[in-house]
C-alpha cells in the first residue's frame, strides 16, 4: 500500500528529510510551504528518489484564511491522508520578544496558533476517514519554561498540550496523534549555535519520525536521550530552578 503523506512546512530541514524518507518508500506526497520555487526543488528531488507522486501548494502558513483551501487541496491531491506532519516553525529571538509583544505574538502565531488552526481543519477529515496520524513538531523547549527561550517554549508547550488533548479526543475515532519533541538539530534555523555532542542532523530526526508514526507512539523525544534529560530538568524543584541560568 502506498502511503499518502501531507507535509506542512516542507521546506524546513527536518520536514525535507522526512519527506525523503517517505519518498524512498514510494509514498505520495503533498508538500506545503511558503516558497513555490523551493517546493519545486523538493518535489523534483522526491520524484527522483522514488515518490509515486508529489503535489505542492504554496502558502503563508500564518494566513489562516487559506487553511481550509490547503486542507481541501491536500485531500483532493492525496485522496486520503494517512499522515499529516506539521513541521513549520521559527526559533525567534527571546530578548527581542520579551521587549516587544508584537514579536512575541509572531512567534506564538507561527509556532502555536497556526498549527492549532491546521489541526482544527484536519481533525474532521481524519475523523471521517476513521484512521490516520496527525503528527506535529513540538520541542523539548516546551517542557519547562527557561529564561533563555520561554516565548518559543510557551508556543511549543501550548502546541504539545493541545496535541495531548486532541490525542485523547480522537482515540475513539481511530485517529492517532503524535507529538514530536526534537532536541538540538543542526539545521539552517540553528546555524549560528555552537554545536556540541548532543546535536544531530535532520536525517536522524526524520528516521525517528517515520518510526514513531509506524509504531503509533504518542510522544517521542528525538533522539531518545532527551527523554531522560528532560525528566531531570522537569524534576528540578522550582525554588532551585529559578536560580539557574539554563
Amino acid at each position, binding site marked *: 500500500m502506498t502511503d499518502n503523506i501531507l507535509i506542512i512546512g516542507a521546506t524546513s530541514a527536518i520536514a525535507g528529510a522526512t519527506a525523503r524518507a517517505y519518498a524512498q518508500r514510494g509514498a505520495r506526497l503533498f508538500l506545503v510551504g511558503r516558497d513555490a*520555487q*523551493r517546493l519545486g*526543488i*523538493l518535489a*523534483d*528531488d522526491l520524484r*527522483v*528518489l522514488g515518490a509515486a507522486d508529489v503535489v505542492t501548494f504554496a502558502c503563508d502558513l500564518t494566513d489562516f484564511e487559506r487553511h481550509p483551501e490547503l486542507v481541501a487541496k491536500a485531500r483532493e491531491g492525496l485522496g486520503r491522508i494517512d499522515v499529516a506532519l506539521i513541521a513549520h516553525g521559527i526559533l525567534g529571538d527571546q530578548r527581542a520578544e520579551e521587549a516587544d509583544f508584537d514579536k512575541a505574538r509572531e512567534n506564538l502565531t507561527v509556532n502555536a496558533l497556526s498549527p492549532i488552526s491546521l489541526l482544527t481543519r484536519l481533525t474532521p477529515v481524519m475523523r471521517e476517514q476513521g484512521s490516520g496520524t496527525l503528527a506535529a513538531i513540538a520541542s523539548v523547549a516546551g517542557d519547562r519554561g527557561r529564561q533563555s527561550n520561554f516565548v518559543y517554549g510557551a508556543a511549543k508547550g501550548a502546541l504539545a498540550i493541545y496535541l495531548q488533548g486532541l490525542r485523547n479526543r480522537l482515540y475513539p475515532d481511530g485517529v492517532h496523534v503524535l507529538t514530536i519533541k526534537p532536541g538540538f538539530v543542526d539545521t*539552517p534555523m540553528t*546555524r*549560528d549555535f*555552537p554545536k556540541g555532542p548532543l546535536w544531530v542532523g535532520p536525517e536522524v530526526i526524520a528516521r525517528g519520525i517515520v518510526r514513531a508514526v509506524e509504531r503509533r507512539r504518542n510522544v517521542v523525544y528525538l533522539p531518545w536521550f532527551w527523554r531522560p534529560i528532560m525528566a531531570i530538568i522537569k524534576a528540578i524543584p522550582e525554588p532551585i530552578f529559578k536560580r539557574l541560568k539554563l
Partner: protein
Amino acid sequence: MPMTDYTSWGRVHRSRQIVCPPRWRHEPLPPCDAPSRLPWGRGRSYGDCCLNDGGALLPTTALDHFIAFDAKQGILRAEAGVTLDAILRLIVPRGWFLPVTPGTRFATLGGAIANDVHGKNHHADGTFGRHVTRLELLRSDGSRRECSPQENADWFAATVGGLGLTGLVTWAEIRLRRIASSEMAQQQLRFANLDEYLSIAAESDAEWTYTVAWVDCLSSGSKLGRGVLFRGRHAESGPVEIPEAPRRLAVPVDLPFSLVNGASLRLFNALYYRGHPTRTRSQRMPFLPFFYPLDGIANWNRLYGRRGLYQFQCVIPQGQEAAMHEILARIARSGQGSMLAVLKRFGDRPSPAMLSFPRSGLTLALDFANRGELTRRLLGELEAVTVQAGGTLYPAKDALMRPETFQQGYPRWQEFSAFRDPAFSSSLWRRVTGESA
C-alpha cells in the same frame, strides 16, 4: 558570523574562515563579509585547495537535491552538494554506476568536477570531467551560465578542474555507466618490481576496465617497486543492489601520535605483500570494498595523529620511468611513507579541463605522516624529481608545491585566471600564484 576552524583531509593546515552556506540553488549567493569565497563540499581534498584562510567558505551541504534522473539513458542531474554516496544509492539498484569515481564516495559532485577527479579506469574512460554533460555556474555578480562542451565551452573548460575558483557550480549533469551487476570480477597479481609492474599493467589496461596497484614503498634494490596489481570489471551477471555496508569502524579521536611509523609500516608491507600468492587470484566482490576500501573506516586520517598527514601524488610522463625509480628509491631510503601507496598508469584520453592533473604516464600516490621538516624536505626532493622529468603534482592532494611547479605543470593557468571569479580564491590558489585574496 562565527569564524570556524575547517581543516582539509590531511589536517596539516589549520585555517580560519567564515562560513556562508548557500541554501537553495535558485537563490543568489548569500551575502558574505569576507575578502574572498570558496565553495566547500565535504573537505575530502588533502591539502589547501578546499581552504580559504581569512576568507569565506561556502559549504554546499544544503545543495543536496536531485533534479532529474533518466533511468533509460543513464543521465543524472543533481545539485553540486550531492555526495557520490547518495548518487550510488540512487543509481546502482537501477543498473547504473558512476562513470568515474575517486577512492572515496564521500566527496561531492561539485568536488569531483572542481578537481576533475580520476579513478582506476582512467586508462579507459579518462577523468570525471569527460562525463559531465552540463553544469550551471553562479558567479558573485549574480550571473548564471549553463555550460557544456558545446555551449559556453570556454567557461566549461575553466570550471571543470577549476578548483572551485570560477564561481559556484549549483548543479551538474553527468552521463552514467550501465552495469549488469553491482558485483565486481577482480583479479590480483603480485609483481616483483617496477619493471614487472610496467609490463603487466600495460597488458591489464588493454583488457580490464579498472586497474590499480598497491606498492610496497619500503622495498629497495631488485625489489624496488614490488607490489600487487588489482584489476577488475563490473560482473556481467549477478545481483544489482547496494550491499549492506558493514558497520563502519571509526577513529573517534585524534591520536596523540601517528600509528603509522617506520616499524608498523615495514611489518605491514612485508605481510601484505606475502599475503598475496605469486599466481593470479580471481574473486568476485561487492563494489564498495573494491572502490572504497578506506571509506570503511570513518576518519581514518586521525590514525596519523594530531599533526596530520601530507599526501603526495605525482604524474611522470610516459618514457620517464627512470624518474619513478628515483622517486621510489628516495622514499624507500627515507623510511617514511605509508601502507597505502598506489601506482597507476594514466591513459591518454584528453580532459576538457584547462587545469586537469591526469596526463599520459605513471602516477604514484601515497601518504606521509607529518614529521615536520623531515617530511617536507623529502616531499621537496620528490617534487624536484617529478618536475625534472616533466611531470607534475595534483592540486587536490598537494599542500606544499612551489609556485613554479604549478605554473609549469599547468601551463594554461594564466588563461584560466581570466575565468576566475574575482570574488573567489583559495589558500592553494594564493600559494601557487602569489596573488592576494
